[in-house]
């Protein structure tokens, strides 16, 4: 199945979860998501999500100058972002459990 639609719903949650561990720059986040198994995630979708979360106050950003090339823009999570992450984590847990149960019931 096309996972793009599914990804849309969980992109906020997964991005917040990645940044929650340690601050990261955009491509770093993309790579981590892909390495974790979300291979279909689009770069632009991640950057757009970062921008939206930043505008909503869930993320902070800061620029780190580089010696060898262009500067990097890092994102970190804010307390508001942590609150959002906690809430969404619970929502997702509940939602996925429900969906799993439905699917198991259908098969049974």
């Amino acid at each position: 199945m096309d996972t793009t639609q599914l990804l849309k719903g969980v992109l906020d949650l997964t991005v917040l979860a990645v940044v929650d561990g340690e601050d990261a720059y955009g491509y770093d986040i993309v790579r981590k998501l892909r390495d974790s198994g979300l291979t279909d995630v689009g770069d632009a979708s991640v950057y757009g999500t970062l921008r939206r979360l930043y505008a909503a106050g869930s993320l902070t950003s800061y620029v780190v100058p580089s010696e060898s090339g262009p500067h990097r823009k890092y994102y970190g999570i804010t307390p508001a972002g942590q609150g959002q992450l906690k809430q969404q984590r619970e929502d997702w847990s509940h939602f996925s459990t429900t969906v799993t149960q439905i699917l198991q019931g259908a098969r049974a």
Partner: protein
Amino acid sequence: MTTTDAEANVAPEVRLFLARVRRELADLDPEVLSDITDGLEADFTELVEERGPDALGDPVEYAKELRAAAGIPAGARPPRGLAEQVDGFLDAGHARFDAGVAKLGELLRTDLRPVVAWLRPLWWIVRAWAAVWLVSAMFGWSMSSAPAVVLLIVAVAVSMLIGAGRVWPGGERGTLARVVLLVLNAFAVFVLFMTWASGGVGGSEYDRGWSDGFNEAGAGGYATPIEEQAGIYSDGRWVSNIYPYDASGKPLTGVQLFDQDGKPIDVVTQPDCTSTTAAPLPPLAVDELDMAEVACTDEMTGEPLQPRIFYPWSNGAAQLYNVFPLPSRVQPDTALDPNAFAEGAEDAPAIQEPPLATVPEVSLPGVATSSPSASPSASPSASAGTADKP
């Protein structure tokens, strides 16, 4: 290390890709745009190192995805080419102009749109004039010369057709046509400014030189009999007097001329140095010369000449300069002598001999010509021209 140095390390394909993405997002607030695209150079550089340049993909698609994920409404302003941008710019300028007119109309409590609509054809004529002025200036023509007049008629016609949208670039909504029209109009404004700056609106160089001379002549504190400048030109030459002939070809005296509005036709511009130059006059005695205003000088020798001064006819109440031929005399100064016609005056102004003793008889089918010797209503058949009446 400055940002510029840092950007120098960005691969060209990354820079190009980002430039395209930024252009797709050009409608965004600059702050938002920098927010959303800052730092992408570094990330894309890493991406290209890891996955190769092809991983960048399509910038348009990328921008679309970025927009969607960031929750920015897509297509607030769809991607546009140069022509569309120019069109948009022109539309915006037009809208601003309309708004300005509306605002001014509010201030003046009148709707100015009909006024603007009415002024447009006027502008079409003015810009045609500007074009002809430019051509005439290049060829050294006078604006009253035949080629300039013919050109003006053609130019006004073409300008009107363009204005009415019948001829390219008028009427076309194509971007090129609009730009060409704008440039032409702007150039016309520039030319008009140049004519104004060079004082060329007053007429040809000949006219200007002449009126300068006239002003200088009148600036000595002497009374200039005719306050307003008058004059008629025929075939580019100044008309100083008119000699009418009747249909039978005989010279007439005391013919009153009026134009289509019933305005008296006054050809006199004092003093008449032209005819003076044409017929050299006996010089004044030295003591008289010192007293006299030098109104005219010989063009060749610079010798002072006496001007020819035209005297008016009279209807008992007013002095009339529209009765022809006008009497004149050569006198030392330019002021009219009120006693010039007094009895016993030696050199009373006189009507000069007509240039032609008689001219060929003329007729127009079906038109009874009048002659001063016969009243047309009383006995039309007595008129000289009626012989040709069918």
